[in-house]
């Protein structure tokens, strides 16, 4: 059977906004029942597709016939976003190479290869003690704040910022500035200036970190600044989201929480289940077919946009048994929480360690922790129009 994107002109199909991280919109499930891909209306008026079944999702993400350009947005645009400052031609050219998620083929691997060294399993293992120490400091801070406290503001967000600074190599003296510019909204211009100043400072003080690798690479000076900026933004919020959402999932499922407390060896598999069950990306960045593509019974015409719903694919009953059940003992590997294909998350091994340490140490420090409230239990506006779920505050108490 072949379908074409004929979204109803009166009620165009847009991403449902009635879902939450732990209870995604039932609409995604309905679409998945209908077929592996269904029509989707993008904000620029284009009618493309959204893939909701796991098998097709993987095939699309692995297929080089899809490009990251043009980038169309299915989610609600966020009004009032800061305007880009005027950029000269060189800055514009540099900016184009900076975001891995907007690049294809050689242009993509040229930049990704420079960054890979610090994100391998082995590199993660060598950073593990430093990440554990960051988490331990934040647990101590949380205990000082006292019960009740917001796990997002007092725990997850500060950890994500400190780990980001560690891996990238942003000097400690700039911690407050980094937090002010990247943990809340700030003009892009200010962030550009920050990235530039950090690179300038590090040029004379090269170390074992990502920004030093960038400086040592054959990228131009302008390119280095932009890649640095993109990395300062990428994944920091996602890591905070996942720490907060994973803890919330456990607090809402006391049996699973007890199982994890009883057997900390379950943690490795549990992290994969956190990623599957609490998936952030309702849709990954849109891919565009560069030619007519036929995958199984689904045909995408050249020029059509295809969004992959990681949330929907991670709850596909054909791939995961009882997908709406949170079960930390299941084999959740193969989930699309970090994406898949050549754009699969660069930071995933670091993120895994971060989540594991944050959840493990928090549970150990607070044996009687209880949930008070969490904003994300009710639908929140998307954090990013691509679109991703927002974590919100997660208030807990303990005695």
């Amino acid at each position: 059977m072949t379908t074409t994107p004929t979204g109803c002109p009166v009620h165009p199909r847009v991403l449902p906004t009635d879902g939450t991280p732990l209870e995604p919109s039932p609409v995604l499930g309905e679409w998945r029942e209908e077929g592996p891909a269904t029509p989707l209306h993008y904000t620029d008026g284009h009618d493309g597709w959204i893939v909701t079944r796991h098998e097709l999702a993987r095939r699309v993400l692995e297929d080089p016939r899809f490009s990251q350009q043009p980038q169309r947005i299915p989610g609600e645009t966020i009004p009032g976003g800061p305007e880009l400052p005027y950029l000269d031609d060189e800055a514009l050219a540099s900016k184009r190479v900076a975001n891995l998620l907007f690049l294809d083929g050689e242009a993509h691997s040229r930049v990704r290869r420079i960054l890979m060294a610090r994100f391998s399993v082995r590199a993660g293992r060598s950073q593990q003690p430093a990440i554990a120490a960051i988490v331990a400091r934040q647990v101590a801070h949380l205990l000082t704040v006292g019960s009740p406290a917001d796990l997002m503001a007092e725990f997850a967000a500060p950890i994500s910022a400190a780990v980001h600074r560690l891996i990238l190599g942003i000097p400690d003296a700039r911690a407050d500035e980094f937090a002010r510019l990247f943990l809340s909204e700030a003009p892009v211009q200010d962030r550009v200036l920050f990235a530039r100043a950090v690179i300038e400072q590090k040029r004379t003080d090269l170390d074992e970190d990502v920004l030093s690798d960038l400086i040592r690479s054959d990228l131009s000076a302008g390119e280095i600044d932009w890649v640095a900026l993109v990395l300062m933004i990428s994944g920091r919020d996602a890591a905070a989201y996942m720490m907060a959402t994973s803890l919330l999932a456990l607090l809402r499922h006391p049996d699973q929480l007890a199982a994890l407390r009883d057997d900390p060896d379950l943690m490795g598999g549990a992290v994969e289940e956190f990623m599957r069950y609490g998936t952030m990306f309702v849709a990954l960045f849109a891919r565009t077919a560069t030619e007519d593509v036929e995958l199984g019974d689904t045909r995408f015409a050249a020029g059509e946009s295809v969004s992959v719903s990681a949330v929907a694919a991670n709850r596909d009953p054909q791939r995961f048994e009882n997908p709406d059940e949170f079960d930390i003992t299941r084999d959740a590997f193969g989930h699309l929480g970090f994406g898949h294909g050549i754009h699969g998350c660069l930071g995933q091994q670091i993120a895994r360690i971060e989540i594991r340490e944050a959840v493990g140490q928090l549970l150990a420090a607070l044996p009687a922790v209880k949930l008070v409230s969490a904003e994300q239990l009710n639908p929140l506006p998307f954090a990013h129009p691509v679109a991703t779920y927002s974590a919100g505050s997660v208030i807990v108490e303990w005695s």
Partner: protein
Amino acid sequence: MRVNVDTAACIGAGQCALVAPDVFDQDDDGIVMLLNAAPSEPEHAATRRAAALCPARVIVVDESE
């Protein structure tokens, strides 16, 4: 079982080294390193799993040998 890796296609996501650490590692640049091109029986399941999880189809498992 024979294992082959196309290092030029590797994007360093590390799924292989995570799920089959006795067969795969990543070198100093983050690129896949084959520790054992002919894994023994107990490693077969993990090796197949790594091949299936690899996001860039770098790992080819030949079951005929």
